[in-house]
């Protein structure tokens, strides 16, 4: 059995570690590329949102490399994502691929059902082995998040353009290759040093504008589909913070769900004056995090969403009032396979100009 799964940013490092430690052979799909997107959109319904199209591309590229089992997350609620596992299975079957698809639904407190589904993937393992695998995967996930956050903090001050991203890439490779918790710690330490080294002498002395990135989780986490907004903004001298990191997402959606813990209320409470109804996906979080960034005196917020994403459209309609009330500029970027590099770049540049000009006006006063 050779298991594969779809890409979402650097999530592959964690998932690969977890599965391999449980004795499963893993085929990581090639990193999403133009080829992935064109294969995916050719075989997907036009009005499905971008995640489905890229996932299909990932699966086909992995099946070409010999994968025979696909692991996919399920979902509940008004967002179409919950349906995608089934849709993807049918599309791929229709294309004549032979494979097994394991859809892991959100636990919602039903541990046994999840274990059954996971069991289909990894077979029988001792509890000790499960614990070891989870601990290593967890360490890797935390390391990835920490390195990404550090890269965001040093990028605006790097001495040569592109240095921070190169250092981050090297560090992530070491984390991916580490086979023990000590190894992960070492990789993290080295990566941290390398990233701090890219700061130009005196860099960080001047203050950089701060922009928060909110929106639909897949488009926020996957740099290929969002045209590398995070790196682009960083290289324009902006301190970027994302509203979501993979670790947060797993904690919220897997562990708290598994243990039936109450989920973090903060974004929901903050969003309440503007949006108090569950609209699926991360619609409420998008609004809540925008309010939070305004409270933290950020200079601007950028919302990212896939074209036709219903939860984010609801949030988009609400954001102008948040922007007006809290005095924070907000811009929405919507992506699909027709999005163009030049268009995204022009809008990012214009937004950074807007933010910087209002900052210098504020400083002058």
């Amino acid at each position: 059995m050779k298991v594969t799964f779809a890409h979402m940013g650097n999530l592959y490092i964690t998932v690969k570690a977890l599965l391999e430690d449980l004795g499963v052979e893993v085929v990581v799909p090639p990193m999403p590329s133009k080829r992935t997107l064109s294969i995916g959109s050719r075989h997907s319904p036009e009005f499905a949102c971008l995640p489905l199209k890229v996932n299909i591309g990932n699966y086909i590229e992995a099946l070409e490399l010999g994968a025979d089992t696909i692991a996919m997350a399920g979902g509940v609620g008004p967002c179409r994502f919950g349906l995608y596992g089934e849709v993807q299975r049918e599309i791929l079957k229709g294309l004549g691929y032979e494979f097994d698809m394991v859809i892991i639904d959100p636990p919602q407190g039903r541990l046994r059902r999840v274990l059954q589904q996971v069991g289909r993937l990894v077979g029988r393992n001792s509890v000790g082995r499960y614990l070891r695998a989870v601990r290593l995967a967890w360490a890797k996930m935390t390391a990835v998040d920490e390195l990404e956050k550090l890269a965001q903090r040093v990028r605006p001050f790097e001495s040569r353009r592109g240095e921070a991203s190169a250092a981050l890439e090297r560090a992530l490779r070491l984390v991916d290759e580490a086979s023990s918790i000590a190894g992960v710690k070492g990789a993290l330490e080295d990566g941290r040093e390398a990233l701090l080294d890219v700061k130009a002498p005196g860099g960080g002395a001047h203050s950089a504008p701060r922009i928060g990135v909110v929106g639909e989780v897949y488009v926020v986490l996957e740099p290929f589909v969002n045209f590398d907004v995070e790196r682009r903004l960083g290289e324009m001298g902006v301190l970027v913070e994302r509203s979501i990191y993979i670790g947060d997402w797993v904690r919220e959606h897997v562990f708290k769900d598994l243990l039936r813990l109450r989920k973090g209320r903060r974004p929901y409470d903050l969003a309440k004056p503007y949006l108090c109804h569950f609209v699926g996906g991360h619609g409420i979080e998008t609004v809540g995090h925008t309010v939070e960034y305004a409270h933290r005196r950020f200079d601007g917020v950028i919302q990212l969403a896939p074209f036709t994403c219903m939860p984010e459209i609801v949030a988009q309609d609400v954001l102008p009032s948040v922007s007006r009330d809290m005095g924070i500029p907000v811009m929405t970027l919507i992506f699909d396979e027709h999005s163009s590099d030049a268009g995204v770049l022009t809008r990012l540049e214009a937004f950074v100009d807007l933010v910087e000009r209002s900052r210098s006006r504020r400083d002058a006063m």
Partner: protein
Amino acid sequence: MARKAYLGVDVGSVSTNLVLLSEEGEVIEKLYLRTRGEPIAVIQRGMRMLATAFSGVDVAGVGTTGSGRRLAAVILGADCVKNEITAHAVASARFVPEVRTVIEIGGQDSKIIILRDGMVLDFAMNTVCAAGTGSFLDQQAARLGVPIERFGELALTSKTPVRIAGRCAVFAESDMIHKQQMGHRIEDIVAGLCEALVRNYLSNVGKGKDIRPPVVFQGGVAANAGMRAAFEKALGTAVAVPEHYNVMGAIGAALLAMEEMECRNEPSRFRGLQALDMDYSASSFECRGCPNLCEVVNIKMGREVIARWGSRCGRWDCL
């Protein structure tokens, strides 16, 4: 001593505009040229046309904007490369200091810029629709055999505009043909088309934006009196068209270059007129480094590669 001047160049898909601005912000010379898919040639031609104007001034800074801003920057040796939204906002605030809404419709792009106290507060650019308004008007004028310069006046003579289905240019055209065949008068159809394009702009680009007077309408389409009247009707307020409405992007680029040079302690990077006689060419190749298969573009001056861009990973970006 020659007086100082700033050069602003806006290279768009349909038009390429050059403006020479005095230190006081007065337009010394302006040019509005058709790009016709040859940005390099049109920049060279425009610069030669400005040659006499250049002889009397000392170029203290060069700014470029528009979709061809990077290309123009390399060829001219620009001091400041800015996106067209910022450039349009800066120019508009200069000519109408109290402006609170800028409607900008060019050949391909449509934008709205919301300003308060001279600062950009919000903006939007056409995304999935409302693109190509200028080109579409051009095409319809040609189809109807009306010179584009007279298209707007013709719309103004209509007393009973026809409702045109304007959601999409393709459907708008077939609806126009249908209305013609029903026997509607041409001025009523033309006026209806302007109203449809304004409706489409307001619901696609202007949606959710806080549109307040004074409203400034600029870009090539602002020449069309029918479009201006349709905006006034839809918004219920006067819409001003600035004198240099079709070269505002270039003016903005020149103003931004001026701003940049004020806080920079080095001379302009302007290559001068001699550099324009060089032979510039663009060539591209497909990078096979990864499945992205990026189209990488080389800009050459003579035989030397002076700029290169297009790769997603950045491996070709530095020379």
